[in-house]
């Protein structure tokens, strides 16, 4: 699995968590770029991504996530 492979599923997760249909992910997108972003949304995204991709991230991993690209790369590395 590559980072590119997981973008469709990751896009679904983001849209679900934010209750929208129009979020288009790109690697350099950061949380504050998305309207409605807050720390609880971040928690919900991490939980949903872990369930969807069957990975468990530790808090040091999570601290390194600044962009969607970081998250995708982490999931690939852990999957």
């Amino acid at each position, binding site marked *: 699995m590559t980072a590119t492979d997981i973008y469709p599923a990751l896009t679904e997760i983001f849209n679900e*968590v*934010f209750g929208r249909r129009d979020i288009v992910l790109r690697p350099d997108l950061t949380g504050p770029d998305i309207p409605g972003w807050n*720390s*609880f949304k971040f928690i919900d995204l991490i939980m949903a991504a872990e369930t969807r991709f069957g990975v468990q991230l*530790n*808090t040091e*991993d999570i*601290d390194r996530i600044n962009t969607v690209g970081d998250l995708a790369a982490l999931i690939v590395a852990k999957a």
Partner: protein
Amino acid sequence: MFLAAARARPAHPAVSCRGAVTTYAALERRARAFAAAFAAQGGSGVLIALPQGPDAYAAILGAGLAGCYYAGINVEAPFEKIRRIAGLLRPDMIVADETLGARLAADLPDAALISPAVAGGDGTAFAGNGRRHDIAYIIFTSGSTGAPKGVVIGRAALNHFVGWVKNSGFITPDDRISQFPNIAFDVSITDIFGGLAIGATLCPFLGRADRMFPARVVAREKITVWNSTPSVMSLMMRAGEATADHLGTLRLLNFCGEPLFPDHLRAIFAAIPDTVVQNSYGPTETTVTMTELRMTRDNFAEACGATVAIGDPIAGIGLHLLGGAHPDEGEIVITGPQVADGYWRDPVKTEAAFRVIEIDGTPTRAYFSGDWAERRGRHIFFRERIDLQVKISGVRLELEEVASAFRQAGHPIVCVLKWRDELAAVIEQDPATRFDEPALRQTLARTLERHAIPAVIRRTAQLPRNENDKIDRKSVAAWLDAETP
């Protein structure tokens, strides 16, 4: 007591986080190095602006060893707030990293800047400088006007509190304690002074992810004693991580700083049935906490009302309910050795809150907490802040009772407030979730009188919170102002 613990088990971990361990011997060396640096400077007031970890703990212990007092700073707070506190304290010394230290020193040219690097020096020879300030620490809390108030805690008060932690046995030398609160929040005193006096191991929470996923830190660090505000428990429950897999190592959870709710207890005992939960109450002005109530899965239900009972006062402390219509309700007024010296350089506020009352014919200095409580059966229950008691259309209302009705209606996180002369409630809810306000109003009407159902009910994805994770009512009112034309 820390030095005795260090002598007893020098190789035991004092601080442990993400695989890095600082032993008691190493922490003692650092504390003595800080103390030597403080003593060399002269003066007594030390502002410690460091993140949680061995350096911060060593600087705090070193301040005590050098006979100084300290004020802790949350380095994540906005700089303007840090600057304001530093300006009020006017410390003799500032311990901070180079960048923050330089910014603070610009306003305080007379304060000596001490780098945390001094902790690496050889301080083993320092054994005190023959003087001891009566003040142990100053905690700056947000006053009702928004201006920080410095609560001055004396050494005798701190010693009494630490004595209780030690004698109560809720922390043992083999425990690994969560060190969640930053050093500007007095809940950290339990960890740092209580834990290190007993010889236990502190596990500091570092970085945003440790704070967002606290249950994972419990599992990672094999934490055995949890200490925080109940809000952190709510966070674990929200993430679905209040589970045996994550929390299975906990033998005791201690909560303080805000009301604990029955839902918290139900979630904890469902996940880890054999654990013990301790609820405790205490304003910053009476040295962290001064009540205790231990609960197990078998007896917690009897301590549950709208909130969980706050417990009985610890030995030596008097808790009195004054000013109520009958003796079983009133403002919580506290007497005993843990009562603060007053507010830093603020005699007017000190005189208003610290007054003399007569106890069994003896004039006794007391702290008037502003918290309203009632005794039901053998338990005391917090009801609300006196300054939050409101009248709507001439009828007195208790905001906490209204909030309790929202919780029962399935909205566990809610802020109820008087706003523009009306009762308002803002619930925290995912915007993707359907919000049926008429149905909610119908549910509320089953438990609340008509005048107690908020005229305004709004929802938001996240209620504003302060640095200590408590819901910030003033910011909620500002949010309502902004949302409402």
